[in-house]
């Protein structure tokens, strides 16, 4: 059975569209507006038609060309003269435009041919037929009408899966600008509107105005003499006052929403004084104040309900359910007043804003279509009809402008409209008359890929199945003149844990100049005003995976204690801004937040920058690393490489000796020379070492992983630690391929830490570790007496089977083992000061 499935709430103030699918109703959102609702407003401009929010913005300003509330005129002979078009337009045509706009909400490309449209209970035959006509003109072949109060009841009944027992229901519909109440009688599963009443000029907008006039303004006037002018009638016509009122209305609407869930709220506003300055004021509003301001209006609506009941010889006790519709029924006072004044309890579980369209959706989901044509919601296949134009587009794919021109040409004359929208939702041309050559300037989002869609519509504004390729324009990112960076540009930062420095990429190789980036880091050590430590901001060019000392320094700011106004405390913030111009000039600015000092320098790439402190440290680290590696290679009997490294080591030591010799007396040339010698020897060492190291590290990585897998035979341990393990080894194939020893080293370190955790979580391993530690010659411990105490304590813990205590003993014993030599050397690590 083919059902209609699509439902539309064609409201006086707002309209909505929904679809029934798989037992549920989905309310479609405005494609560029993020809201479910489309204001039922149409605006005619010189060359375009706007429907919805954009039209509503102009409602008060250009009343002659902008139309709202035309639903009330449906079925009358009244028509509206549009000065800008120099012709009259009927309420049916305006409703047609709203319906067509709603069709654009359907995001899955369905083109429904049948639809359920809701109408007020008050609509007579002529008005109902006028609605049908609008539906047909909007392109729906089949239009089924449903009364709004019945739709609301269906939404309510479906939400609660209620069986429709015989009885009377009351639908109280208080929207943005209109009020309606209806009695629905249910007899043998059939719903019928018995009677209704309403006021076309009562709703939430009135409440906002009341809140401003009666609650906010009196408070504002009391805060400052200058604000007395807001009560002066002539001032209220001024632009300045209108600006303030728009702000207050917006704030009032927000406060109104907040007062639905809390008893008190506050509004912050900055209002203009007579001298042009703004005064911040805080206005407190209680729910009681708000209720008092709207009381008369709400009570009036309830008097209409009472009249309706009386005229149908019903008492409140005869009402089985009260269904609330319209955003204003969110207000607790409205709900309480209905309960208090009518003595009927209200159910608030259905969203009153979408109740009617959801009900229409449910109805459409059960209503069989009378059309014999294929499925009502079939997606059209795009076939190029010989009668339809083929569209070719022309535009610049990249741009540095704020807006760009899109030109389209159609291969034959076309009578209809076109519309261009930007994918993010921030731009929409509305319907524009189409000619064979189309030209439209479109605004671009800065630094982003902007995607636009051009669509064609026939004279009735129904979409035409013409395939147009997506328009993609990249703003700002690529400039034709821009040259790419030949190498990575990095900042040298401290790896405090490993007591060495590492590189952090600022700009990757092939990024297009000019470039700018601000990085935020913390100080990795305290730098005292009366100390000797320095903060070193070192910008390097080269391979991001290489050792820092092998890269070329292209910018360096050294901040010594003499330049500080106060101590820089470890952990405080550093802001480092790096800019590279198209001519490769590098500007570095360092802002130290704690002392609020800024250090700026511009570096010309033709110069070299050398810090003696850094040079000393780098050569020491390099020598240490070389000695360590020589030992390693000799142990693995790789004598050839060991000999090579020894050769580099001699060179490095020579550099160090020269540096030591000339302490304080190194002239600039000599400094650059030593720096260059160091860099060359470091590069040679890095290249030789890296391949070997990488394979060793990869081997170690898998070895530790295997260890961990053994622990995972224990199900409890696996459950506890598996997610951590998976996080570490995620993207393993990628990072193991990267030629970065630092990266793989990091991963191995993480795995080792995890393995240690596993050891300390496993009873067997805790015991075996303890025995190993207890068997070590006590002379080996740094504090023999303490070691003996811990070993004894461990023995007792074992007897008591207290494994938590045993864990503590193990850690204490491990801490009593002496540090290795390398660690001692690392203790002297100075680093850059950037963490």
């Amino acid at each position: 059975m083919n059902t209609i499935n699509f439902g539309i709430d064609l409201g006086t103030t707002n309209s909505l569209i929904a679809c029934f699918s798989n037992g549920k109703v989905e309310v479609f959102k405005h494609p560029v507006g993020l809201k479910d609702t489309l204001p039922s407003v149409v605006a005619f401009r010189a060359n375009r038609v706007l429907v919805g929010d954009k039209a509503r913005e102009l409602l008060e300003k250009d009343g002659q060309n902008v139309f709202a509330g035309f639903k009330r005129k449906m079925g009358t002979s009244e028509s509206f003269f549009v000065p800008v078009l120099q012709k009259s337009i009927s309420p049916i045509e305006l409703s047609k435009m709203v319906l067509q706009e709603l069709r654009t909400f359907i995001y899955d490309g369905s083109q429904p041919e049948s639809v359920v449209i809701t109408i007020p209970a008050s609509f007579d035959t002529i008005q109902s037929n006028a609605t049908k006509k609008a539906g047909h003109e909007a392109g729906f072949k089949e239009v089924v009408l449903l009364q709004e109060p019945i739709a609301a009841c269906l939404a309510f009944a479906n939400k609660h899966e209620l069986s429709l027992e015989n009885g009377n229901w009351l639908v109280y519909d208080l929207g943005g600008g209109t009020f309606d109440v209806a009695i629905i009688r249910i007899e043998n599963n059939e719903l019928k509107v018995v009677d209704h009443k309403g006021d076309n000029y009562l709703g939430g907008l009135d409440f906002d105005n009341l809140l401003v006039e009666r609650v906010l303004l009196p408070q504002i006037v009391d805060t400052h003499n200058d604000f007395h002018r807001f009560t002066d009638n002539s001032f209220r016509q001024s632009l300045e006052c209108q600006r303030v009122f728009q702000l207050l209305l917006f704030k009032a609407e927000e406060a109104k929403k907040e007062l639905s869930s809390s008893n008190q709220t506050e509004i912050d506003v900055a209002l203009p004084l007579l001298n042009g300055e703004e005064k911040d004021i805080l206005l407190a509003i209680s729910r009681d104040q708000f209720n008092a301001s709207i009381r008369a209006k709400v009570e009036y609506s309830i008097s209409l309900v009472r009249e309706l009941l009386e005229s149908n010889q019903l008492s409140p006790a005869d009402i089985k359910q009260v269904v609330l519709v319209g955003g204003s029924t969110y207000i607790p006072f409205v709900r309480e007043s209905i309960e208090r004044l009518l003595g009927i309890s209200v159910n608030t579980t259905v969203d009153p804003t979408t109740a009617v369209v959801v009900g229409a959706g449910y109805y459409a989901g059960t209503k069989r279509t009378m059309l014999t044509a294929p499925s009502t919601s079939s997606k059209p296949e795009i076939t190029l009809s010989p009668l339809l134009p083929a569209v070719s587009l022309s535009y610049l794919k990249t741009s540095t402008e704020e807006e760009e021109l899109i030109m389209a040409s159609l291969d034959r004359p076309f009578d209809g409209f076109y519309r261009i929208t930007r994918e993010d939702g921030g731009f929409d041309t509305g319907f524009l008359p189409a000619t064979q050559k189309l030209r439209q300037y479109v605004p671009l989002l800065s630094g982003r890929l902007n995607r636009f869609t051009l669509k064609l519509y026939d004279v009735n504004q129904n979409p035409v199945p013409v395939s147009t390729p997506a328009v993609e324009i990249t703003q700002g990112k690529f400039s034709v003149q821009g040259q790419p960076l030949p190498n990575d540009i990095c900042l040298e930062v401290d790896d405090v844990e490993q007591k060495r420095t590492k590189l952090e990429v600022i700009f990757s190789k092939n990024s297009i100049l000019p470039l700018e980036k601000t990085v935020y880091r913390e100080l990795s050590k305290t730098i005292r005003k009366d100390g000797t430590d320095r903060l070193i901001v070192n910008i390097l060019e080269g391979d991001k995976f290489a050792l820092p000392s092998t890269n070329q320094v292209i910018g360096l700011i050294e901040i010594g204690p003499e330049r500080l106004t106060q101590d820089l405390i470890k952990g405080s913030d550093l802001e480092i801004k790096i800019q590279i111009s198209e001519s490769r000039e590098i500007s570095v600015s360092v802002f130290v937040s704690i002392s609020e000092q800024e250090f700026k320098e511009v570096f010309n790439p033709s110069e070299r920058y050398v810090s003696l402190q850094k040079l000393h440290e780098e050569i020491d680290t390099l020598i240490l690393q070389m000695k360590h590696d020589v030992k390693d290679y000799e142990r693995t009997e790789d004598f050839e490489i060991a000999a090579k490294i020894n050769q580099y080591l001699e060179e490095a030591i020579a550099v160090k000796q020269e540096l030591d010799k000339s302490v304080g007396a190194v002239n600039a040339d000599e400094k650059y020379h030593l720096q260059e010698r160091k860099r060359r020897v470091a590069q040679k060492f890095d290249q030789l070492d890296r391949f070997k190291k990488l394979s060793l590290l990869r081997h170690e990585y898998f070895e530790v992983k295997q260890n961990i897998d053994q622990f995972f035979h224990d199900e409890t341990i696996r459950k506890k630690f598996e997610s951590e393990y998976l996080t570490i080894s995620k993207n393993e194939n990628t990072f193991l391929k990267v030629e970065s020893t630092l990266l793989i080293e990091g991963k191995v370190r993480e795995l080792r830490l995890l393995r240690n955790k596993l050891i300390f979580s496993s009873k067997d391993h805790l015991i075996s570790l303890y025995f190993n530690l207890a068997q070590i010659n006590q002379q080996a411990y740094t504090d023999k007496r303490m070691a003996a105490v811990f070993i004894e304590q461990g023995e007792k813990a074992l007897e008591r089977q207290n494994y938590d205590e045993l864990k503590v003993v193990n850690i204490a014993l491990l801490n009593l083992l002496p540090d290795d030599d390398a660690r001692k050397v690392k203790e002297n690590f100075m680093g850059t000061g950037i963490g």
Partner: protein
Amino acid sequence: MQKNAAAWIGLINQLFEIEQRVRPKKEVIDATRQFDRIRIHLEELGFKYHSPVNEHYQETRTDCEASVVGDYVDGKMIISRVIKPIIYRVEENKTVLLQRAIVVVESCKDE
């Protein structure tokens, strides 16, 4: 992230409001660096906000919800006040509007 989008939008609106209040008092409290930094962190999290104040306003701008003050003159309108900023969700290759700006629009004084 999707789940928390409303909270992020709320947070950015509050931040924007603080920024609006502090900016005129720059002589007393200069928090420009802090705001810039928060912006960068928000971008790292995929959010970008923008105040369209003093930008031209046209009906094609669906990134703003405008209240028009004074006369509406086609092509000569300017955004004079921003009550809420435009908020975007920025992904690698895609930008999505999360919140339209709430603005006051009036005709250019000099034109």
